[in-house]
């Protein structure tokens, strides 16, 4: 069995006094897109924020390539090679597209320029609007900027929280294509409510309910399993 890149075991996370995550466990394997699914409020975003150290878990373990990262500061976790695309995208609207990338760049060398070229190939709009204020981009372009920004660094892992949120179907297709291309460069954890997107990108899936991981498997199994989809995702037919 291949070693997982990320292994999350039995984490519990509080927000203030609220016990939000009550036992989340999953493993992310190289070469795969791992999709986290579940109804609104199930704890998917909180899980990503726990991994990033923004909401440090009170118990459980998180290992990145066998190295424990729970308790590290967000900036330390990021520097170990985890990129994060939050649910609200986290764009710096007042900065230009170029400046958004500059903040993300931890080094600026030949490799960075190569990666920038790859990014421009996958997201040509970002090259076109390089000098524009990020706040003036369309919703889809903002999402692309949010996804592309962490890629300027050599990351092990990219966490993407609901990239389809608020976007038109045709743009969602475009984002799906882009993420397909990214699989070659980084391992991806995708949180997604849009089952069409989740099923077209996912290899492994984990189902969340009430702050716990309750099911796991291969995406093809979930696509077939009407009962699971109905129970945890509210999808019928």
């Amino acid at each position, binding site marked *: 069995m291949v070693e997982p890149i990320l292994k999350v075991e039995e984490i519990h996370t509080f927000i203030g006094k609220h016990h939000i995550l009550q036992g989340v466990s999953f493993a992310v394997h190289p070469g795969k897109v791992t999709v986290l699914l579940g109804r609104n409020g199930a704890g998917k975003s909180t899980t990503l924020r726990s991994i*990033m150290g*923004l909401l440090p878990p009170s118990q459980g373990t998180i290992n990145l390539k066998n190295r424990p990262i729970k308790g590290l*500061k*967000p*900036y330390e*976790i*990021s*520097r170990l090679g985890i990129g*994060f695309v*939050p649910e609200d995208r*986290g764009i*710096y*609207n*007042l*900065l230009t597209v170029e*400046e*958004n990338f*500059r*903040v*993300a760049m*931890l080094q600026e060398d030949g490799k960075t320029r190569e990666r920038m070229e790859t990014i421009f190939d996958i997201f040509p709009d970002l090259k076109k609007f390089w000098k524009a204020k990020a706040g003036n981009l369309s919703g889809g372009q903002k999402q692309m900027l949010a996804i592309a*920004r*962490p890629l300027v*660094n050599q990351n092990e892992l990219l966490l993407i929280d609901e990239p389809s949120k608020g976007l038109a179907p045709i743009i969602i297709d475009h984002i799906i294509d882009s993420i397909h291309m990214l699989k070659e460069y980084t391992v991806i954890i995708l949180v997604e409510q849009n089952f069409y997107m989740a099923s077209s990108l996912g290899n492994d899936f984990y189902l969340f309910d009430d702050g716990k991981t309750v099911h796991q498997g291969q995406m093809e199994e979930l696509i077939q399993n009407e009962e699971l989809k109905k129970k945890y995702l509210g999808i019928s037919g």
Partner: protein
Amino acid sequence: MNLKWKRWFPMLIVFAIFLSPLLGINPKTYITITISGLAMGMLLFLVSSGFSLIFGFLSVLNLAHGALFAWGAYIGFTSFNLINQWTGWGGSNSIFLNFIIFLLALIISGLLVALLGIITERSVIRPVYGSHLFQIFITVGAMIVMEELIRIIWGPNDEVMPVPIKFMGSWDVFDVVVSKYPLIAIVIGFILYLVIFMILRKTKIGTIVRAGVENPEMVQVMGHNIYRYFTGVFAAGSALAAIGGGMWATFVKSIHPAMGGEVIVFALIVAIIGGLGSITGSVVGALLVGLSYNYVAYLIPKAALGITMLLLVIILSIRPTGLFPEGT
């Protein structure tokens, strides 16, 4: 189009206020008062910019900022006197040596108060990040302590602030009285504004700071230790307050322990008018306050402070987020 108009709208207000007193003042006096108003504005800018930047980036309401300003004035006072005893440059007829001693005193004051700012941020402010209410309590406490320390170290009385000899008096330009020091203050203030602006706009550190004003969490998950930047911005803001304090004291030629409390009110007003976190907003806001204060002080002396409040109310009713809410 609409966006451009929004950008220039604040300038129009400044311009209107700038010219309106011509209706009631004779042109020569008007120029003299205008220079003095611009000088007051640039000095207020130095205090307010630090205050505004600290609020915008750290989201900290630092009411001890005025005390840092007072410390800046006192350290500037002592440095100037010590260097002058040793070199006599303050009384020299060479304007160059006058500048050297003046700038040395400001630099020493800026550096020492930056250090004081770092200590304040680490010990007093860090525990109350995120809570404005606690920040108000604790920074007012820090302000009182710092003010008392001034009384203990330098004594409770007013002191006369030394002024380099060539900075005194005025030039006569076509019958218009142009005071020397206010002009010098305007130039130094403007240079400092340009320096801050370029740092924020052109350097990587500045870009990260601007990103942090908008979304500090995202800056952290991009691998930057935001607390180091917090400390840096706090130190820079404190240094600006100190330089402002030293220059202000030279302007009014005196210092006293409570001088910080008076100026913090102005700093707050300027920062809010300009848009919290915006450096250009601070300049425009400070010039507005400085000019209107001086015009009104000449026309109706009793209404001078009132006009500042009125200005605040008017601008906030038109633009609740201040003149330059879009940053830098």
